[in-house]
């Protein structure tokens, strides 16, 4: 009570003082001028807000950094504020000139972390949340916004399995696989829009990316949060003058590592020597070389206008981006814009915020790398042309070069999102908001194969082939929330509660036809083909939807800035769940302790921060197909009816599962945030242990008594645990020189604890279809209790004198391949998930120069070298084979076999990015700042692995560790390339 009184009295005194001041102010005014400069570059700062403290009087600096302000008599202090700089209060000097020098505020953006449905002070965060802001983004020219943070967050795995292909997304995984489904990716929330579309994000529009790694943070997103949550915040206008930013880069890719097939001359020499028994057709063709786009050039332009004052701000940006892959006919052009406006009203009690973003893109999908193996293995004494110059076709292979000339495959897509959030300060401490968003994503895909193309001739009787597909996806969200903040004495309570309604609906249509008279219409007049009449034209359409509804709340409590606690509850239901399990609850609780604020550490001056965190949270996964719980009737093809008419047949295409429900993950997280020596050494250490239960998968069902051999049901459980460490160190700090090092490290171990329940029993799951010649089956098998990603195969015991395989049997004897039992004799021979992942960024600044060196690596795992397995064997002849066929595997004279003979250590270290930048010290009233930089991407890889770039081998999900050249199991190989990039950032 006593304290309360003194608080009250202070407020009264302060008010009185203000009143007096303003009275005085009425009496006399004077004018002062001054110049505001940047502390570092000593360059003028335009657009700085200059205000007389305690009044609403203020102005902004002009282009040359100067201002002129009439101040009331008695004013003593000016307040200078500017985005990205520390607020400065400067006494008004007695003379008419008051100059100011603003220091950049490097920590301002980092002090606050975006969490779900709100922000939190970093010092008060009690969960495992990592936040990366713009200056730390990777700078190789992102093809996808998440490329920006690859290797930057311990525990966030981003694997780009298809290199420089601009039309693919990286595989993203937070901490570990949590599901057996294909849908392994985290929930992406863009400015509050759940399940946002990454196409709408451009690298220069992103302010920060926050990753909610553990369950105690992610539980606020309920059944979408098992795989973690990535929160993206875009840039907004800031109070201050208007400004224009222009960012651009140009990039070129160069082939780095190509599979080691025989060169045409070597191949011909082996025909001559009798090692290859086939005919020399006389040509010498480097088929792969024909597919490479040596003239590739990628360019990017982003122009942003922003500004604002206290009551409102805006930012508008437009961009153009033309990306070209290393392979021909593989590109993507896109342009679009983003607009955000924030405005206040009702005496600043009402805040309205609007975002509108759109992306138009046009992708050339004719090549995705999936066609490489056909050309790599093509007998190199052939030519892609016949003697008369026409294309050479043969029924059993595809003339890839001809295909690139004679076919088209263009995807045009437009995605738009709009959202609005209106917040009202209802009473002190209580805010009510309503948020609404819509994403509309529509696409058109058009394919055409000319009449003379191989596809047309070999499969469509020379009548061409045309295809069109259109799709429309709509996602709606409405989320009213209430926020409450109360500070009582040393207690601070903040709470947020809300309701979320989300509805998604997808629909699509496609049609194809052939039998065209000429190539004039292409895919633009589908009905001109003759197959509508002849019955072989195709048509299809679909529509499905789902609804997700939730109630959620979170309470954070902080005592004396020392002790923090947070509790979350989300109750969520989805239309996808079975009738018996429509709703689930997802609670979380976490606590933190700022140890460094305790008196017993007061003397330890070297400790600037030491926080302990402990959290536990339950999240779910509802990322499965719509209607998965219902017994639906599927078509079974036409059959003849007694009246002689062929009609569609229908039968159940699913087994019933009214109990279908979400997967549930329970996770403990123990963390330490540390900072020593005035923040020169800081970082975080997290230990986690998580268990996913009710894992959904397609399980084999009892047949009989069910109709279908598989049922989609909740059976298995996973466990994983790991360590994540991040270290940010300022190693050297001199007047003109600064060297910082950031390290991210993670270690993980996974286990499939069970695949069984009362009804369904399974002792193992097989994953990772090898594909290619000889149907070798799957490469990975995990038994109950085993690790995810275990290679399960034969153990090589040597070759016979005739070069025949011998493999070990369970009893230690050896035998040929067909005597080796998959169940009895196969063994765990390796694992495809890296045990350790690490990255290191070294940044050096010298005066206006900066140099960044970024290295990444993965360690402690194996890769199945499918290249050697399928292309390093004489059985592959007379198709082209790897050189190793005649060296390393010279002894082998037997069928293609999968065994540990082809497993290799996959560990690697990659010099992923080197950027040299220079801040051009302009002293010019037009240009605020200018930076030029030169980046080399994917410069070198140190590895013992002999196949493709090991970095491109999938290490996430359940089918990791298998190299690609053949296209099985959704693997696509893409050639590894080095990139060189020149970039420019200018602010006006």
């Amino acid at each position, binding site marked *: 009570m006593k304290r309360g009184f003194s608080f009250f009295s202070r407020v009264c005194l302060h008010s009185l003082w203000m009143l007096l001041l303003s009275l005085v102010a009425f009496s006399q005014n004077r004018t002062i001028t001054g110049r505001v400069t940047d502390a570092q570059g000593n360059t003028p700062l335009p657009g700085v807000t200059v205000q007389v403290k305690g009044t609403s009087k203020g102005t902004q600096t002009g282009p040359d950094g100067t201002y002129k302000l009439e101040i009331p008599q008695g004013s003593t202090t000016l307040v200078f504020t500017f985005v990205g700089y520390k607020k400065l209060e400067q006494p008004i000097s007695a003379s008419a000139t008051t100059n100011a020098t603003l220091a950049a505020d490097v920590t301002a953006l980092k002090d606050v972390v975006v969490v779900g449905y709100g922000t939190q002070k970093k010092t008060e965060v009690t969960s495992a949340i990592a936040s990366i802001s713009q200056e730390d983004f990777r700078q190789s020219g992102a093809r996808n916004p998440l490329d920006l943070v690859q290797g930057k967050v311990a525990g966030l795995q981003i694997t780009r399995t298809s290199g420089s292909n601009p039309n693919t997304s990286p595989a993203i995984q937070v901490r570990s696989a949590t599901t057996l489904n294909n849908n392994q990716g985290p929930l992406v929330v863009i400015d509050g829009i759940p399940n946002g579309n990454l196409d709408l994000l451009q690298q220069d529009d992103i302010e920060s990316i926050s990753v909610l790694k553990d369950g105690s943070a992610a539980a606020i997103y309920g059944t979408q949060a098992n795989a973690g949550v990535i929160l993206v915040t875009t840039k907004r206008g800031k109070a201050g003058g208007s400004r224009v930013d222009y960012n651009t880069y140009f990039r070129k890719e160069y082939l780095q590592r190509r599979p080691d097939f025989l060169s045409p001359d070597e191949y011909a020499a082996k025909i001559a020597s009798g090692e290859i*028994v*086939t*005919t020399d057709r006389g040509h010498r063709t480097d088929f792969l070389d024909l597919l490479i786009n040596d003239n590739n050039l990628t360019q990017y332009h982003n122009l942003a206008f922003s500004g604002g004052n206290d009551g409102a701000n805006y930012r508008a940006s437009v961009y153009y981006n033309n990306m070209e892959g290393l392979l021909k006919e593989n590109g993507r052009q896109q342009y679009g814009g983003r607009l955000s406006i924030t405005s206040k009203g009702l005496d600043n009690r009402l805040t309205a915020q609007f975002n509108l973003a759109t992306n138009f893109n046009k992708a050339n999908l004719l090549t995705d790398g999936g066609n490489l193996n056909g050309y790599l293995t093509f007998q190199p004494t052939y030519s892609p042309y016949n003697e008369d110059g026409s294309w050479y076709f*043969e*029924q*059993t*292979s595809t003339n890839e070069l001809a295909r690139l000339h004679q076919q088209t495959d263009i995807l045009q897509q437009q995605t738009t999102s709009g959202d609005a959030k209106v917040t009202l300060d209802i*009473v*002190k401490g*209580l805010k*009510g908001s309503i948020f609404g968003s819509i994403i509309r994503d529509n696409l058109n895909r058009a394919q055409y194969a000319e009449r003379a193309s191989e596809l047309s001739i*070999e499969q469509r*009787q020379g009548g061409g082939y045309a295809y069109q597909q259109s799709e429309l996806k709509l996602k709606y969200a409405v989320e009213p929330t*209430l926020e409450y903040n109360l500070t009582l004495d040393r207690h601070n309570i903040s709470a947020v*509660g*809300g*309701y979320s*309604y989300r509805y998604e609906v997808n*629909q699509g249509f496609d049609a194809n036809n052939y039998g065209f008279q000429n190539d004039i219409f292409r895919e633009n007049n589908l009905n001109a083909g003759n197959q509508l009449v002849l019955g072989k034209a195709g048509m299809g359409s*679909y*529509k*499905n*939807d789902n609804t997700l*509804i939730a*109630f959620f709340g979170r309470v954070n409590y902080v005592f004396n800035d020392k002790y923090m606690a947070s509790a979350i509850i989300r109750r969520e*239901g989805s*239309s996808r769940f079975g009738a018996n399990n429509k709703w689930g609850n997802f609670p979380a609780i976490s606590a933190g302790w700022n140890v460094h604020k305790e008196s017993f550490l007061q003397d330890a001056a070297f400790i600037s921060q030491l926080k302990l965190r402990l959290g536990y949270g339950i999240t779910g996964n509802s990322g499965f197909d719509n*209607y998965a719980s219902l017994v*639906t*009737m599927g078509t079974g*093809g*036409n*059959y*003849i009816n*007694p009246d002689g008419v*062929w*009609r569609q*047949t*229908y*039968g159940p295409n699913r087994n*019933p599962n009214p109990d279908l429900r979400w997967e549930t993950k329970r996770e403990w997280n123990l963390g330490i945030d540390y900072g020593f020596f005035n923040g020169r050494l800081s970082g975080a250490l997290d230990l986690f242990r998580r268990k996913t239960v009710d894992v959904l998968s397609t399980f*084999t*069902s*009892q*047949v*009989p*008594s*069910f*109709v*279908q*051999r598989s049922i989609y049901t909740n059976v298995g459980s996973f466990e994983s645990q790991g360590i994540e460490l991040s270290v940010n160190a300022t190693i050297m700090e001199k007047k003109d020189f600064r060297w910082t090092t950031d390290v991210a490290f993670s270690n993980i171990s996974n286990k499939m604890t069970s695949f069984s329940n009362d009804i*369904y029993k*399974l002792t193992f799951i097989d994953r990772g279809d090898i594909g290619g010649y*000889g149907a070798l*089956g799957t490469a990975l098998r995990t038994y109950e209790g085993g690790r995810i990603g275990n290679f399960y195969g034969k153990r090589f015991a040597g070759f016979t004198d005739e070069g025949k395989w011998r493999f070990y049997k369970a009893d230690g004897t050896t035998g040929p391949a*067909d005597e080796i*039992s998959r169940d009895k004799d196969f063994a765990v021979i390796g694992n495809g998930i890296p045990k350790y992942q690490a990255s290191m960024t070294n940044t050096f600044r010298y005066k206006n120069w900066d140099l960044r060196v970024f290295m990444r690596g993965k360690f402690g795992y194996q890769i199945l070298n499918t290249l050697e397995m399928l292309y390093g064997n004489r*059985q*592959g002849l007379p198709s082209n084979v790897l050189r190793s066929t005649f060296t390393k595997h010279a002894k082998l004279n037997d*069928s293609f076999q999968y065994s540990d003979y082809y497993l290799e250590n996959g560990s690697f270290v990659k010099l992923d990015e080197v950027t040299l930048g220079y801040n051009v010290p302009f002293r010019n009233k037009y240009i605020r700042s200018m930076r030029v930089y030169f980046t080399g991407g994917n410069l070198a890889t140190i590895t013992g692995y002999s196949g493709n770039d090991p970095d491109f081998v999938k290490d996430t999900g359940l089918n990791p560790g298998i190299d690609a050249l053949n296209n099985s199991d959704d693997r696509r190989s893409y050639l590894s390339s080095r990139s060189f990039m020149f970039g420019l950032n200018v602010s006006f």
Partner: protein
Amino acid sequence: MKRITKIATYAALALLPVFASSCTDLTENVYDQIITDDFYNNKDEVVSAVLRPYTHANAWVTPGQNGWWRLSELSADQLAWPQKGRHGYDGGNWIRLHYHSWLVDDGPIADCWYLLWTGIGFCTTAIENIEKRDAGSMGITQAEKDAYVSDLRLFRAFHYLRVMDLWGNVPIVTQIGNPINPPTAERKDVFNFIEKEILDHIDAAPVLSKSFIGRMSKASAYAMLVELYLNAEKWTGTPRWDDCIAASNKLINGEAGGMNGALALDPNITDTYKPTNHLSKEIIFSIAYDFQVSNFTPQWTGDFYHFNQGLINGNDRNGNDGVVVIPGVYTTFDDTDKRKKEWISEGPQWKYGTNNTEPVIASGGNEYNGEQLVFVDNIRKNKLGSTLSDMTQGEENSGVRFNKYKLGPITDPNYRSTDWAVYRLTWVYFAKAEALMRKNNGAATQEAVDLVNTCKQRAYDAEVWETKKYTTATLTMDELLAELGREFIFEGYRRQELIRWGKFTTASWWDHKPSESFRELFAIPYAQRALNVNLKQNPGYPN
């Protein structure tokens, strides 16, 4: 206090959605699929459910997938899928089928199990749904309802017949999901169940007519009884030769109808297998196809055809260069036997329509890339001069090939519409002949000889026939088995025949050595036994 009231009020307002039911409505709107409960509302829907197991039967009764056909033929003495260079190893599946060394978890065996039981499921779900609904509510008459149910029950019996053929002891399941883990029944009981289902519904079944092409009919029911009784001695220990003869007579005497007039043998060796074989007089039950109007087309091209086969046939069907005739089988046909050249491809291959002037050039980077395709009656690496011959020693041209059924050139108005005969009258003739002989202690009777000769005569020109026809002296049991092999090559029955002759696990052929007697039944798939504890493994297999 006032502030707290205010906060409470706003919080309550915000929580209002909890009480509004529309805000918690999680109904699924099904737009492009049909929920089972919303089906069976009119005749078209009912018929489409009745016919679902028929399109599915294409998957397991004809070649092209891991169905009854592959297990029956690739484990027998006429056909094999050898490894040919880099192709065809396929996990050793075909090699193990050939050597009778299949494992309890082999893919083809499990796949076949699933295919057959899913077919049974399609029958049963339709039976359940139709039986529980009132005929009027489905827009059909009671008579139609009864006919649909008997059709489905007969077809389900056909599935059980083939399940029993492969695995012997299997569960008898007549309700979906009840019990979830059905127990294994003795083969004898399965036999009785099948016999009863057929006999209970044979009278209600329609006589075979044009309208019942590709469907169950009285004729197919009798054919099933023929198969059941022909194998009864092997399957139950009790011979039923007279029942077999009686059922055969129903068909031979035309008492069960025919697809094109009275059931009769086709006059030659091509009518039964050509694109217009829906006009065949002898087909009793077939999987009916019509590519032109329905897109439903034979799936077996992948198994039989070479990568460049389309050039030979003047169409766009190529295959995986898979199944070939085992060395030594081709020469069991004498050169005057028209079936030899008509049903089997051998020697240099020529482009369609070029009158043997333009060779078919192999492409695709295999052994004979760039050379004329020549199918040879041996399986060895001729290209490398090797004489070693076994399942792993094939090349792309190894083995003579299937050419019995023909799809026609792409210009044929019935292209890719050739039906696959499951039961044909010739097979009934042979069954009756076999029953007569077995009744007669393995010696031919004149009636048996006449039955076989009537069929065989079609394969010979009149001038040589007299020297080729059988007499009661020449038609021994072994000769009957050999003739069955020639007449029914590629048709799926070879394993059954070898088992009836006691040769399946005791004889040798090509590189195949005698196997263990328990191999007469396939292993119950491991994955199903892991799920269903009431499922017993067949004797001889590891438990």
